[in-house]
């Protein structure tokens, strides 16, 4: 998506929202501030926030929470749900009457949760507009719905990158990493001929392969959805080329056959031990590869998925506020969310500095990448300027991924893509099946 177009459309969203907010404030200047949950800091102290997160670095989460708690004199009850089954867990709590006040969520759930009143629209909360305005233009539509609702704040952001073995690429006679999907295949073929049985690994399990659909469509210069979230990939002839490529990568043995069920840990081990040359996944996996100190870890570097030849997927997960939080608790919860997903009261990216240090996770703010503490915290073997450039200029978040119906499409995607890779389908039939899956997901009639 072109940044200038994105900026123009989202700026108009911001202008509309700002105008509406101004009108609302003007019309309600005599209304008690309590009714909007906009209380002073002093009034918001002494609250107990129920916070639910998944189990990634629980000690880091606890330290972040403790720090905020101490400063604001509010208490936070943290509960952890395993990442696997997190959506089921959080939904069960919502329907069971024990919703969290602030919780992690997958971006693809975020608008659905707001629509179902499980999560709050953050519009009008102090600093919400500034938080969005401070983001990369390419990132905003993950957090802002088409109707202007601010559905979430960032938990972390990442871009799909290509982790690669420098020595293997050089030994195969290539001076750079691939600049197109076809070059990816060609380099894999040569490296395979040099003795690496399965040069390319990626996380193509059924429940996750939908991300790769966008990674590869964007790499092939295909726009998957239009601005309104309508699928347009099937109208682009390049889609068939991408799907043919994808099928060939699996069928021709460029990937291990087990790539359809393997976990990321296995791929990390594989590339770290010199059993793979390329690993396409989120940028922060480079840290796992290098720090696993495998026999080939020191040879692993990072590049864009297809270099200058296309874009990649910018992904990220979010934090949301519970839909039933009101009054003083709402003010406290929002203050917590701002600290966790934006800046602390002192204007620092404190939370993201910690995530950068502990996990090489990023944030969707340009200021994050120029923050001296973030630069110091990031591992030296990671090229932060490359990652920033990818965020800013070479990635797309595919806004349709946060639409309320999208998860239904995502659930069907895995079966369709696996059928393609296993040879049970072809590119045209797959494109058609994906289009039908969008249609059934939108109508709520998927099975």
């Amino acid at each position: 998506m072109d940044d200038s177009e994105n900026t123009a459309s989202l700026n108009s969203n911001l202008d509309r929202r700002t105008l509406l907010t101004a009108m609302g404030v003007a019309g309600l200047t005599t209304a008690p501030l309590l009714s909007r949950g906009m209380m002073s800091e002093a009034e918001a102290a002494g609250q107990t926030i129920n916070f639910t997160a998944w189990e990634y670095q629980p000690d880091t989460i606890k330290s972040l929470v403790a720090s905020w708690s101490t400063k604001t004199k509010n208490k936070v009850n943290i509960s952890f749900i395993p990442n696997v089954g997190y959506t089921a867990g959080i939904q069960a709590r919502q329907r069971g009457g024990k919703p969290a006040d602030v919780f992690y969520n997958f971006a693809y759930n975020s608008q659905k949760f707001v629509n179902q009143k499980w999560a709050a629209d953050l519009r009008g909360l102090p600093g919400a507009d500034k938080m969005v305005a401070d983001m990369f233009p390419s990132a905003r539509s993950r957090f802002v719905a088409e109707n202007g609702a601010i559905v979430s704040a960032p938990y972390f952001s990442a871009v799909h990158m290509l982790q690669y073995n420098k020595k293997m690429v050089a030994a195969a006679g290539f001076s750079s990493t691939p600049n197109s999907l076809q070059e990816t295949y060609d380099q894999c073929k040569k490296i395979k001929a040099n003795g690496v049985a399965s040069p390319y690994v990626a996380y193509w399990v059924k429940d996750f392969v939908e991300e790769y659909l966008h990674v590869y469509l964007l790499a092939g210069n295909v726009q998957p959805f239009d601005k309104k979230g309508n699928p347009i990939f099937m109208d682009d002839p390049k889609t068939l080329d991408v799907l043919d490529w994808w099928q060939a990568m699996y069928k021709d043995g460029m990937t291990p056959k087990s790539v359809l069920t393997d976990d990321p840990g296995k791929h990390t081990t594989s590339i770290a031990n010199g059993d793979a040359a390329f690993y396409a996944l989120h940028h922060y996996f480079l840290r796992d590869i290098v720090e696993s100190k495998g026999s080939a870890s020191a040879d692993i570097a990072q590049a864009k998925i297809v270099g200058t030849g296309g874009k990649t997927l910018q992904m990220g997960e979010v934090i949301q506020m519970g839909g039933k939080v009101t009054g003083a608790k709402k003010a406290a919860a929002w203050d917590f969310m701002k600290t966790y997903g934006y800046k602390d009261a002192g204007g620092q990216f404190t939370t993201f500095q910690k995530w950068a240090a502990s996990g090489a996770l990023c944030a969707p703010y340009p200021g994050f990448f120029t923050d001296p503490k973030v630069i110091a915290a990031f591992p030296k073997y990671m090229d932060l300027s490359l990652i920033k450039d990818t965020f800013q200029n070479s990635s797309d978040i595919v806004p349709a991924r946060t639409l309320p119906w999208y998860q239904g499409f995502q659930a069907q995607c895995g079966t369709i893509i696996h059928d393609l890779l296993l040879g049970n389908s072809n590119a045209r039939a797959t494109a058609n099946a994906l289009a039908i899956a969008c249609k059934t997901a939108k109508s709520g009639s998927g099975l």
Partner: protein
Amino acid sequence: MVKGRKSKRSVSNRRFGFYLALPAILVLLILLAIPAIITVFQSFFVVPADGVGIGTFTRVDNYLFLFKNEIFWATCLRSILFAGIFIIGSTVIGLAGALLLNEKFVGRIFLRGLLVLPWACPWLIVGIIWKWFLDGSIGLFNGVLLRLHLISDYKDFLSDPNWALLMTALASTWRQSCLVALLLLAGLQTLPRDIWDAASVDGAGIFQRFRHITLPWLRPALTVVTVLNVIYGLMQFDVIFAMTQGGPGSSTTLLSYLIYRQFFIFTNFGVGSALAVALAIIALVGGLITVKTLYRKIEL
């Protein structure tokens, strides 16, 4: 005693039995019966995801949606196939284990104790263990098959749609067969040794004794384990979720996994409830067929 008149003692005994069972009945009502009734009720509605209100009454539309969908029928067949492998595997392996552990040998008590270990593993852990066991690069399963010269190279069973269902059924069978063995062993322990010895003296061979003495004696226990196997086999979710998430493709997508998707991904609680009712009916029919086929009262 006058015929037809129940003795005070027998009525009192029955009442006492009822009172003893009452706490368990209440727990079952609260934890099972009430949610089941709610599920059946929900299956006739479009249920709002936020839980506010009952939703819109749709009569049998949710069921019609399922019956018109080929994915539903394909998944039903797959679930029945999975359950079939699971039932046969668990029963045969469990019976073999029970027969073995009923014999006297050194270490019998230790092995009997080991039987409990797989059964003590939660289903999800069983799935995780077996996923690594079946790994196509380093899995022990492949290693054993290779050394037995049954395969020439390591194989990615879980990525092969022709093998994935069988392997997930095998993982489930591994755990369930231990329960079957324990229950059947208990039954074997009550078999009077005299009958067995008398048959041997009369010239009956080992297979004849097994067929005419052991199996009939185990019939009630076999009925119980088969009914349990039918239920566990059709309801299996955790192992599938841990090992394959219903893939590759849809080769291990069972009805239980479709229910999960409807509730937690599509948040379509009405259709999910209809799927749950359909699965319950299939399990009920399977259980009834089992009881009808296998159960006969032992003549005392």
